[in-house]
């Protein structure tokens, strides 16, 4: 008798659980603030980027300033060439990253490689290419799940206290993962000095390597001899950041060395762009930079 009533009560419990779970998830969903970007979609984006088997005419290579600063769609429209953004966080311009990027080039296409030059791309720390390599280590099964299942789960973001606090304070870091490797980003409120201190700390920990630079220049020579046209440019940043970077890296000398290696240097004016943290461009500025790059590539040809 007691056992029967326990069975009955448990059955009620199971039914309530089944009915109430979607309601509870829905209630949480509407009560929690909307997040400016989805971490699940981010995972899907990076999985797509690291395992992209499509072929392109132009590949833009670099660090986070590239994947936040270059919109390949705009370059594609201007140059009428398929373009992909191959930027990764804290990336170093070493052979592992560059050869992997070049695999994206269509052997029958225009074969253009565009490099975003930043001082940090030649540091010992950046040469580890930790972000890029960690993505490369993801198993095929996990990549498949991230690419094919995660896009449907974008609404189920995980929240942290700081994110909720920021949302209630109307602070947000908008990161919209777009096609072909670009993240349209901006921050509210923006602070063009935000990255300066961490950048100074970064260069206390690590230094620019001459070897990395000469390896890069040798690689450019090789690529040019193989018929891959190389372009390079200095990624615009905020004025204080540009001043700081000019002190730690001689862009003029590097430009001359690059040109003598066969690459074409695209001069980008350092003013006229907005950065939300001093280091990364806002979405509209990224589009503007992409237009300048597209025009330069088109005019060169």
């Amino acid at each position: 008798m007691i056992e029967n009533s326990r069975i009955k009560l448990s059955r009620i419990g199971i039914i309530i659980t089944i009915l109430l779970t979607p309601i509870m998830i829905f209630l949480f969903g509407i009560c929690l603030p909307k997040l400016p970007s989805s971490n699940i979609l981010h995972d899907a984006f990076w999985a797509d980027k690291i395992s992209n088997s499509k072929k392109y005419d132009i590949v833009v290579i670099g660090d986070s300033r590239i994947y936040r600063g270059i919109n390949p769609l705009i370059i594609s429209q201007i140059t009428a060439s398929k373009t992909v953004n191959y930027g990764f966080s804290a990336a170093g311009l070493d052979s592992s990253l560059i050869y992997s990027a070049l695999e994206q080039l269509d052997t029958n296409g225009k074969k253009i490689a565009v490099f975003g030059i930043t001082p940090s791309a030649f540091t010992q720390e950046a040469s580890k290419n930790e972000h890029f390599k960690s993505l490369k280590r993801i198993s095929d099964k996990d990549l498949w799940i991230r690419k094919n299942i995660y896009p449907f789960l974008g609404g189920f973001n995980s929240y942290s206290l700081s994110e909720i606090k920021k949302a209630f304070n109307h602070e947000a870091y908008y990161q919209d993962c777009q096609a072909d490797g670009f993240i349209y980003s901006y921050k509210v409120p923006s602070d063009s000095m935000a990255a300066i201190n961490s950048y100074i700390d970064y260069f206390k920990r690590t230094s620019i390597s001459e070897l990395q630079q000469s390896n890069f220049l040798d690689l450019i020579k090789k690529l040019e001899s193989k018929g891959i046209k190389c372009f390079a440019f200095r990624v615009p940043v905020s004025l204080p950041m540009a001043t700081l970077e000019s002190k730690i890296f001689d862009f003029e000398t590097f430009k001359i060395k690059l040109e003598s290696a066969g690459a074409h240097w695209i001069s980008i004016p350092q003013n006229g762009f907005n950065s939300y943290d001093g280091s990364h461009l806002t979405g509209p500025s990224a589009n503007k930079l992409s237009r300048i790059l597209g025009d330069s590539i088109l005019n060169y040809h």
Partner: protein
Amino acid sequence: MLFNSLPFLAFLALFFGIWPLVKHKNTSKWLWICCMSAVFYGWWDWRFLFLLFFTGAIDYFTGKFILKFPRQKKFWLWLSLTTNLLSLVIFKYSGWLASIIDNGFATFNIHISFKSWIPEFTLILPVGISFYTFNSMSYTIDLYRGKTKPAENILHFFAFISFFPHLVAGPIIRAKDILQQLTKPIQTNSVQIFHGIRICIWGLFQKMVLADNIAVLVNDQFNHVGEHSDSAQWWICMLAFAFQIYFDFNGYSTIARGIAKLCGIHFRLNFNQPYFAHSFQNFWQRWHISLSSFFRDYVYISLGGNRKGRLRTNLNLWITMLLSGIWHGANFTFVVWGALHALYLSIERFIIKQRLIINNKPVKTLFNFFLIFIPVLVAWTFFRAKDIHEAFYIIQCLFSFNFELSLKELLISNAVFWLIIGIANEYILFNKFKLIHSKSPIFQAVLICFLIALIIYFRGPEQQFIYFQF
């Protein structure tokens, strides 16, 4: 395949989709368990399935020979033990042992690299090897001692060995507990199903919300050990780790119990609120119970236990704890961790147990905290540190009482918030108010739904279960 992953959800749907059709006949039930467990294990690396089936087959047949040739049963037992321990040595300890030998030679200026001679394949640690070899060994030892009945056939045996809920991270189950359950007709009623769902969700909450969120603080601190010297920061970090590993491993064991319960099979409790322990001995009766009892029954008692005088008792204790430390990993840090616990237990036996009998409850609780919990916390330093030097640096920081930094930012961090919630859950909600055992099904259903929503919206960054590396 992780319990907290999408593929596992699909796997579980497939398993339980077919389970009602196969659970009534032993052969089909065992075959289904074996096949699905092979998929579960092979999802990580199918190459190591051979090891699982090889050591399993040896144990099954040696078990048969133990019964068939009782005069030679000692030989068959040793064959089984040697095979299992050898596979552990090759796949878990060969790299470590080779580097010890290399370093030994290097001190005499002889530079030989034994490590480079080891085939690369054997340097990969097969997931769960320490767990399934122990499960398997318990079968032959129990058969030898006449404490269990033999498996009906090889399928029955492999269903016990490979049953996926316990396969890769325990709990270590005994043949005598499970073999019989697998032969009985399985009748799962609503009470068991509801209980199974409840503990699965509770385990997932412990792992995905509590452990994974707390892990952010611990990992960040341990990734930059040299940059942190503040004592308070390290005490918070070690407190966080103590609860991270508890929620992580207890979470896994709880999910495993829940899934087994849904299959109509009962696993024993693997954790029983260990941080409530009133002695070190009691701590080991509450922490990773399946492993502690394995070492107690098969090592400590086999060595003579406490029957051969004080000195021998302590020697047996040290051997058992050192083996338990090495079982966890091929690193001196685990040896020191085991040695520290052996030391605690020895001291407890000789001094504390005899002198401190306190009847006042609050004073007793305070004493327990300082005399049990703090030493356990210090021992965890060795468990988590990547080497001995790192562990000693942290211990130096802990006891330098150097409070330089403002802890405001740390204390309002997400990880600390979930740490407080976790501790409150453990000490107040589930201990004082027995929430998880509440009689009202409506309350329990609402609690499950609430926990599911928390898991979906407040899960931490996905981390592998800590005990997968063992």
